[in-house]
């Protein structure tokens, strides 16, 4: 799949999203539930702002010393008999994974949820080489079954679907005959998946955080599927983005506390798994072979830039769950597997501006995202920084806009021009004014008045009144 999904044109994707009332009501409902859950969990924990400060500090420290911790991690993985591969690009990561698949003569891979494997398009790469890939996270399983429908949310990938739609997918693709009660459908999926677990040759997991001090990986799930993925097959491959690392178990504790609460409003998810290397003598389960693939794929280009904080993200989706833009257009409209505010920040960095130039503008800068982020990424500020880059470096904005902004600079820094312009506004608008309002504005006012009325500028500005008035006098 890769990072980019859906139609090429942003406008078309948005129109499609806006027209999908099923999706929009499913998203609004889920956002409400997740938002309320997060706030409640944060309140129960108490002193949430200090926890956020701590989270930010940990992420900042780790990114500032990322080279050190990655080195420490790989040494410790190797010490425990695991194999580590640094993949500079998506292609190199896929090549390595395929090589392992080939060596093991694997026919079937079972996966737990992993966004980075979506980012590098791992499933397609494996399938193109004749290896079957089964998603075991329930959401991902549904999407895979529905002709590879892309995820629309980084935590709840099938958020855009309601239960009736899911029942239809099960019915059409797997011959499911029962109703759309979630428990029934889950039981059905579980039965189907159990056989896949038992017959898979390789298990592939993502990684919520790797722990540098012990060479461990951690997995945060609610379904227990990641445990089966890492316990049953003889070979385990874990794929992680290079920034998904903590120095020690102590920091893991803090970040997992923030993650579970921010993502799903739980103190802890049902399963928090810590795994260190392959099976050792005396272990009852676990893989004989363990591979850790650390993916760069553009991340090191973000390090050391004004966008470094984007790498602080712990993939909780709290920003997505409060975003009013996401609420209306849905995840697919972003055209990236990383949607919402963090997606709008991250996608142009990992992909490129050319294909994603609208994303930084798909925000009203309301800062709900920044307020929700458990590690205090200033998301709305990063969106403005993107805009600045598009203006100053990429020079991708339209000539009319550049001209308008130049004129604005001139007028707003020259009182005489401002005075003249604002005085002339009333006269200029008078042909379009009716009952003190403009409902069909000319030229640049058109996009505004297509949707809303505009109050007409009055003959007397505030400053005209002020200059005439008697100091301290009241109108009434």
């Amino acid at each position: 799949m890769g990072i980019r999904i859906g139609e090429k044109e942003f406008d078309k994707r948005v129109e499609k999203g806006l027209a999908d009332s099923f999706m929009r009501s499913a998203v609004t409902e889920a956002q409400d539930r997740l938002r309320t859950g997060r706030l409640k969990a944060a309140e129960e924990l108490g002193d949430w702002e200090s926890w956020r400060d701590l989270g930010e500090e940990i992420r900042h420290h780790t990114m500032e010393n990322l080279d050190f911790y990655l080195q420490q991690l790989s040494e410790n993985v190797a010490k425990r008999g695991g194999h580590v591969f640094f993949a500079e690009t998506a292609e190199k990561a896929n090549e390595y994974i395929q090589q392992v698949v080939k060596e093991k003569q694997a026919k079937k891979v079972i996966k737990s949820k992993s966004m980075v494997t979506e980012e590098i398009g791992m499933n397609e790469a494996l399938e193109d080489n004749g290896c079957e890939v089964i998603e075991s996270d329930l959401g991902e399983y549904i999407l895979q079954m529905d002709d590879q429908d892309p995820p629309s949310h980084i935590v709840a990938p099938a958020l855009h679907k309601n239960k009736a739609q899911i029942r239809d997918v099960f019915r059409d693709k797997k011959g499911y005959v029962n109703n759309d009660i979630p428990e029934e459908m889950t039981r059905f999926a579980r039965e189907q998946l159990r056989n896949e677990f038992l017959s898979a040759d390789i298990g592939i997991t993502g990684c919520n955080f790797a722990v540098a001090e012990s060479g461990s990986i951690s997995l945060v799930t609610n379904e227990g599927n990641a445990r089966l993925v890492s316990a049953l097959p003889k070979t385990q491959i874990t794929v992680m983005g290079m920034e998904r690392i903590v120095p020690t178990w102590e920091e893991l504790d803090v970040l997992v506390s923030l993650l579970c609460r921010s993502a799903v409003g739980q103190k802890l998810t049902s399963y928090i798994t810590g795994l260190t290397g392959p099976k050792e003598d005396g272990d009852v389960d676990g893989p004989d072979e363990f591979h850790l693939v650390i993916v760069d794929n553009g991340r090191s280009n973000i390090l050391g830039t004004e966008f470094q904080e984007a790498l602080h993200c712990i993939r909780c989706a709290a920003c997505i769950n409060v975003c009013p833009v996401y609420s209306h257009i849905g995840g697919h409209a972003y055209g990236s597997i990383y949607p919402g505010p963090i997606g709008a920040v991250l996608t142009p960095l990992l992909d490129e501006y050319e294909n994603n130039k609208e994303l930084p503008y798909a925000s009203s800068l309301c800062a709900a995202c920044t307020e929700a982020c458990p590690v205090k990424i200033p998301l709305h500020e990063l969106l403005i920084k993107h805009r600045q880059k598009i203006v100053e470096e990429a020079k991708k904005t339209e000539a009319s806009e550049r001209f308008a902004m130049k004129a604005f600079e001139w007028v707003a820094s020259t009182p005489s021009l401002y005075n003249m312009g604002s005085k002339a506004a009333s006269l200029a608008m008078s042909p379009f004014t009716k009952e003190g309002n403009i409902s069909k504005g000319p030229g640049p006012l058109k996009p505004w008045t297509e949707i809303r009325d505009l109050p007409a500028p009055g003959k007397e500005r505030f400053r005209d009144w002020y200059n005439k008035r008697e100091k301290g006098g009241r109108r009434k």
Partner: protein
Amino acid sequence: MKVSLFVTCLTDIFYPEVGKDTVELLERLGCEVDFPESQTCCGQPAFNSGYHKESIKVAKHMVKTFEGSDYVVTPSGSCAAMLKEYEKLLADDQAWQEKARALGEKTYELTEFLVDVLNEEDVGAAFHAKATYHTSCHMTRLLGVKDAPVKLLSKVEGLDLTSLPHGYDCCGFGGTFSVKMALISEQMADAKVKHIEETDADVLIGADAGCLMNIGGRLRRKGKPVKVMHIAQVLNRKEKR
């Protein structure tokens, strides 16, 4: 207490009544209000669109305009937040940055100034109406002014204030967002209109002209009878029953 009013360009041009009420309200509470005439706009349209070079010149002009002021008070949380942003914007020049910091430190949004500086919650207003209050994003999230407006409104005689469902959601204004992403903005405004209607309020009160222009414009376009008022208009209101 001497107070300089930064009226904001939107209020100056589109909502002069809000400016008048702000002046009278501050004077009624004992402030001496002046209006530095060279003031223009805070520069936010350019800054938020990524035109930072263009906004720097505007920022410097505004810093100069208010150099002699003790307090700068403005009836907009968004514009107040922009004035506080100058410090970062002008970071390349230490002398200017110092001046920008000084401006940021003496700048207050109107309701914040009333409650935190003047220590006034009951400003003696009376307004008999059923109303709801729209919290503006920049005022609450960038400036951190959350309680002041509600404290003030709760003391207004006769005002029946119902809380607005989903009040935390943006109304869809977002400056240039409202025209650049017009279709999305429209949906956000419609969601806001729907929630306002759920309150049965006759009046929508807000504290930022940008939001009010957007919500008010959409309400009017849809033929909804809800009246839109700035909080300064409510707080400066005294009516006989």
